[in-house]
């Protein structure tokens, strides 16, 4: 009985023990499998993390060599990641209107008209970090293309820029003389440039050293050029072998000053010297009507002809000042040119013409005025808060022809000896890309007997400018 009982208990105990051992072994196996599973999952997570890390490194590495493409108010730009190569495509279009309220004569040249004043695609940029280039074409209304002056090519040059202090530019570009001439056609205060611009060279083929000294407050430029007539452009010298030398010093001595009243002051002087042969240009009013021309003809006694023939020099002191929304600039030019009158025999004279202008503007909307482009604080939106930038403008200028010009070198009846113009206007910069302008200009003349010269000129000019 007892034995049976003991045996039964032993069997029960043995069964329980073996079940417990089996249970423990099973648990140990489960734990091992679980740990292995955790380890595998950890490895997978690490691999994913590492792959993400490597993708990040690859992206960073790729970004170092991937060109950056951008499109905005400043145009379309592609640049390499290291910025050593840049290509920018932009341009501007000016659709103008010219109106002469006091002239209804159909035979007059003062016809009210709409025209494309400038249509200029621009390609510019940099190669190998230090070489800047620019190609600007122009396709305005009535643009001529001649061997002596290909008007389609405005700028075509390369500027090597090893240091900001010493740069070397070669090609076709603006000679460094007239202040308003050097201002971009897209940033002009008035629709047409003033009188001094007609006495300085425009664009010419040549080579120029230039740079910014003393941390940038003194800009210099000195170059050798084919030489062009006053107000003229050229890219192929056909009249003479001589070259013109042009130079300019322009200082903004307080540009880094804390003093707000002085910071916007800039002043300088520019000039050219050389020898010029060939045709002479007429002078025009702000309404682009000719008020003075040198005599042109076959060079006979009955039809004399006047051309440039000899020394030419120009000098132009110039200055600007900007303070907050207010800005003013002025320049004065003396242009001396030796001329020849051919009427069977030749007669020579040195004629010295002068021109000057002062122009001012004020932003009613409070933008900081500048010689360069102005960005409206709040671009215009229809029905919204933005009004754009509204700028009021005013100017006065004169062009005085040398008295010795008459009567041998110009017709005193059909040409004025002096033009004096005043103008007012408003520029509405809707945004960085669109600008609308309205000018009223009035001109009086000294000398001349034609109805136009006696009555003077009143003109209304309008412009819609789109730049991109």
């Amino acid at each position, binding site marked *: 009985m007892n034995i049976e009982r003991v045996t039964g208990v032993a069997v029960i105990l043995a069964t329980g023990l073996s079940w417990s051992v089996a249970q423990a072994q099973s648990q140990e196996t489960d734990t091992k499998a679980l740990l292995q599973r955790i380890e595998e999952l950890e*490895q997978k997570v*690490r*691999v994913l*993390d*590492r*792959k993400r*890390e*490597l993708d990040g*490194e*690859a992206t960073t590495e790729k970004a170092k060599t991937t060109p950056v493409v951008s499109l905005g108010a400043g145009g379309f730009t592609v640049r390499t990641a290291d910025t050593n190569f840049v290509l920018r495509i932009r341009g501007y279009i000016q659709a103008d209107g010219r109106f002469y309220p006091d002239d209804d004569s159909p035979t007059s040249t003062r016809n009210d008209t709409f025209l494309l004043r400038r249509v200029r695609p621009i390609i510019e940029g940099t190669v190998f970090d230090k070489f800047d280039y620019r190609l600007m074409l122009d396709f305005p209304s009535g643009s001529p293309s001649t061997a002596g002056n290909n008007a389609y090519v405005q700028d075509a040059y390369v500027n090597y820029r090893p240091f900001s202090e010493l740069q070397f530019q070669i090609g076709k570009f603006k000679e460094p003389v007239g202040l308003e001439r050097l201002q971009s056609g897209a940033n002009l205060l008035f629709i047409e440039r003033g009188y001094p611009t007609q006495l300085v060279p425009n664009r010419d083929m040549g080579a120029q050293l230039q740079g910014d000294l003393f941390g940038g407050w003194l800009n210099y430029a000195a170059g050798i050029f084919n030489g062009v007539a006053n107000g003229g452009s050229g890219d192929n010298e056909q009249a003479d072998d001589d070259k013109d030398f042009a130079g300019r010093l322009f200082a903004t001595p307080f540009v880094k000053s804390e003093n707000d009243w002085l910071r916007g002051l800039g002043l300088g002087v520019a000039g050219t010297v050389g020898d010029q042969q060939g045709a002479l240009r007429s002078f025009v009013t702000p309404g682009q009507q000719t008020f003075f021309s040198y005599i042109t003809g076959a060079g006979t006694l009955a039809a004399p002809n006047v051309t440039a023939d000899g020394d030419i020099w120009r000098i132009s002191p110039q200055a600007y000042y900007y303070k907050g929304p207010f800005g003013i600039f002025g320049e004065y030019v003396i242009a001396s040119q030796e001329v020849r009158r051919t009427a069977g025999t030749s007669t020579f004279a040195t004629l010295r013409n002068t021109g000057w202008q002062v122009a001012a503007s004020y932003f009613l909307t409070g933008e900081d005025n500048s010689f360069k482009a102005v960005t409206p604080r709040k671009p215009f939106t229809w029905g919204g808060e933005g009004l754009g930038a509204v700028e009021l403008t005013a100017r006065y200028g004169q062009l005085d022809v040398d008295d010795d010009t008459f009567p041998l070198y110009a017709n005193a009846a059909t040409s004025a000896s002096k033009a004096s113009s005043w103008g007012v206007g408003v520029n509405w910069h809707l945004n960085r890309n669109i600008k609308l302008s309205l000018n009223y200009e009035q001109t009086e003349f000294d000398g001349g007997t034609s109805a136009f010269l006696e009555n003077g000129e009143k003109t209304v000019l309008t412009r819609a400018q789109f730049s991109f």
Partner: protein
Amino acid sequence: MKIQHYLKLPIILAATAGLVASASAKDIKLLNVSYDPTRELYVEFNAAFAKHWKAKTGDSVTIDQSHGGSSKQARSVIDGLSADVVTLALAYDVDAIAERARLLPPDWQKRLPNNSSPYTSTIVFLVRKGNPKGIKDWDDLVKPGVKLIPANPKTSGAARWAYLAAWGYALKKNGNDEAKAKEFVTKFYKNVPVLDTGARGATTTFIQREIGDVLVGWENEAYLALKEFGADKYEIVTPSISILAEPTVSLVDKVAKKKGTEAVAKAYLDHLYSEEGQEIAGRNFYRPRSEAALAKFGKQFAKVELFTIDEVFGGWQKTQKAHFSDGGVFDQIYKP
């Protein structure tokens, strides 16, 4: 008389300036564009060479180093990185510079002893301490569940040597059966969870990110890992057979000529073959070429049967085209 006197002045000044210039010591800069794991080798060697050059010429020379996957580095030189010398993982990458950028002559490899390879190495396995996966030879690497960490053969020299070592092993084991070799290497890359662009990146993956069971790469890199991260954490397994990896060096003629560093750059490479250069290579776990340095440092390397790329694959040009060019065997077998 006086005018003649003045005329002489600039000549005298110029001559004096010339003498002063030639008498004064120069500061020279070199750029050595190298592959991934040679950082430590060239840090030591550059210091030694600068000292040697200063003593010999009086000139100071500073050597800048650039490191990355060998093929990637070659591409940088082709794209304009101004290397005076290149010290790359394999001859094909230097060939590429000669062919595509024409910065050095096609026969560049004949200009220095041992085919312009001043030291050698091979491919070994680095495993975690205790060798938990029981890795002994190449066959163990293709078993299921073994995670391998080589670099990417498209960008890394070490990775190409590793790929070829595996292929060569399989060929030898299977009586030169190319299909079986391809099958073996396919299995090998099925066990690869992540590919780095360079050997040093693969080491980072294995050691610092603790990924994988076996780092398959340079012998010198494996020994360096033991030295830096501890022999108590890792072990080196040397397979029964591997490939003789011959990193190559060359002057980049056109760049050095343009920079006026030809002489010093040549001397720099020559110095790799000097006893000092060979000792530095040995100290950094590369197998030196010189008998003396090999006798001194050879004991640290396990014995392994080595085959060359010429013997098994017929040279780099053929190998590159068949295995590593776009659409080649590697592209066929590796699907990330």
